[in-house]
């Protein structure tokens, strides 16, 4: 039985990765999870310089999910290269670095810093709803998606995954634009913009007013967008959005995802990534699936 998948020429031992921003650079969760078992660790987004992020409160719980407006706090690429990459290199897993920026130049600067680093893939966050410049502003306009993808692709030494926002009228338009710009893969969905109000204090629950919604509440939207995008482009898709269980992961794979990222579920169960890997294995055994690749996009009519 073969759980491995090929992601832009990089072989993952299984399709289970971590969703950027929920797993730091793996150190904290390494107390609960054997990182060697993961298909890949996707790091928290890193910029060319340190970012302070947003004021607190930065998170709020909602029904079946959460809102976050961390604002991409990060230590900057220099400390990241000095500390986080060497930490991850100690493990037998693939390293995917999530990259953020306010401008194309800032993204490119990070990508260039990473060019000689032992990093397997780059995930470009053009879909963060919680920063004023950059982020989602790039991700809601197909021309901009294509241009920034092309520019990053031109400078990147590793395969480039463009991470798309669900806060758009037509996800396939963005998926096609990224593909046209030369993206090697897509990841989706980033969070859906939401809001929570404290009715007793009559104020916003988050200092940022709005935040990005994640968790099982968004899962059906993610499955739909992965499915639609898989029909529209030929590059691989990494599916994420509310994956809590192996069943959720398999659903995403059947919809067309080559790999999956697990995010909010880590907060509910710090060991969840390993449990999902075990669950996918059980499913493959139960249904005698020889290779995980058989499941990718295998959904059919009733």
């Amino acid at each position, binding site marked *: 039985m073969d759980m491995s998948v090929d992601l832009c020429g990089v072989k993952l031992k299984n399709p289970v990765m971590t969703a950027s921003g929920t797993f730091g650079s793996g150190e904290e969760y390494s107390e609960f999870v054997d990182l060697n078992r993961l298909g890949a660790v996707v790091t*928290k987004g890193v910029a060319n310089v340190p970012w302070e992020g947003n004021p*607190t409160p930065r998170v709020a719980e909602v029904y079946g999910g959460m809102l*976050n407006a961390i604002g991409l706090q990060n230590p900057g690429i220099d400390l990241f290269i000095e500390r986080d990459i060497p930490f991850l290199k100690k493990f037998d897993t693939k390293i995917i670095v999530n990259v953020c920026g306010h401008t194309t130049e800032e993204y490119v600067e990070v990508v260039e810093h990473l060019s000689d680093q032992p990093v397997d893939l780059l995930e470009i966050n053009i879909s963060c709803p919680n920063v004023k410049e950059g982020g989602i502003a790039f991700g809601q306009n197909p021309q901009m998606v294509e241009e920034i993808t092309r520019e990053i692709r031109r400078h990147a030494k590793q395969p480039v995954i463009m991470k798309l926002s669900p806060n758009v009228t037509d996800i396939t338009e963005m998926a096609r634009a990224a593909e046209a710009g030369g993206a090697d893969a897509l990841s989706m969905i980033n969070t859906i913009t939401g809001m929570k109000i404290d009715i007793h204090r009559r104020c916003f629950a988050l200092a940022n007013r709005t935040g990005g919604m994640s968790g099982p509440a968004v899962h059906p939207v993610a499955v739909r967008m992965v499915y639609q995008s898989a029909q529209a482009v030929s590059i691989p898709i990494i599916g994420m959005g509310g994956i809590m269980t192996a069943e959720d992961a398999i659903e995403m794979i059947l919809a067309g995802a080559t790999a999956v990222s697990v995010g909010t579920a880590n907060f509910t169960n*710090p060991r969840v990534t390993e449990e999902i890997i075990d669950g996918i294995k059980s499913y493959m055994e139960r249904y005698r699936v020889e290779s995980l690749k058989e499941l990718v996009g295998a959904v059919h009519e009733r």
Partner: protein
Amino acid sequence: MAEKFEELARVVRQEEIATDIYSLWIATEQIAAHAKPGQFVSLYCNEGSRLLPRPISICEIDRENGGLRLVYRIAGEGTREFSNLCAGAQVKVVGPLGNGFVLQKKRAFLIGGGIGIPPMLELAKQLDCEKQIVLGYRDRELFLEEEFEAYGDVFVATEDGSEGTKGNVLDAIRAHGLHADVIYACGPAPMLRALKEYAAENGIECWISMEERMACGIGACLACVCRSKEKDAHSNVKNKRVCKEGPVFRAEEVEF
């Protein structure tokens, strides 16, 4: 790195000790054995619509029996769920989390305000020094205050003056003319802010336990930061993680 454990703990007993304030004893395999005063645990809901753990400070540690006492206030549906846990029930818990207090042998103020009082109890038990325990409540509905009496002199302040000194914990300190060389405190931000100022004015060492909305509880998600005076080594910006570098900070190193 301090070890953390994920466990399905057994509820030993629970009682409401004041309106909406519950005292919950749980039996753990490992967490109690490793816990220190000032640390906290993450408690997880069974109800699937609530995904995030609730950080709850440790009120007492019974190392011999693996017991942990958590005293918390019902602040929403999650803590309401916990308040319905009966003896024998199981609850998922991760801990111990955070740094905890650094125990010193100096004449100390242990200051708790409201639901910041519980963590001071285990600290009072473990601190080996002269202790003046100052507890601030809203009104005469006190809780835990009798249990502190075995460990030091207890002074009470109530906002409405119905018990002890009318006013806040600093009013009680002034009313009784108390003095100390180190402050350990947990409570609402205005209280901590006043203590930070008081400590600075009087040149006293001051440790405060901070609170902030959390998601992961273990330092990965960067939700629960507080502003720091200096650049933090981990974050590389002037932010510290309450769940990891904290919840206990030197008052002068954080801004709030």
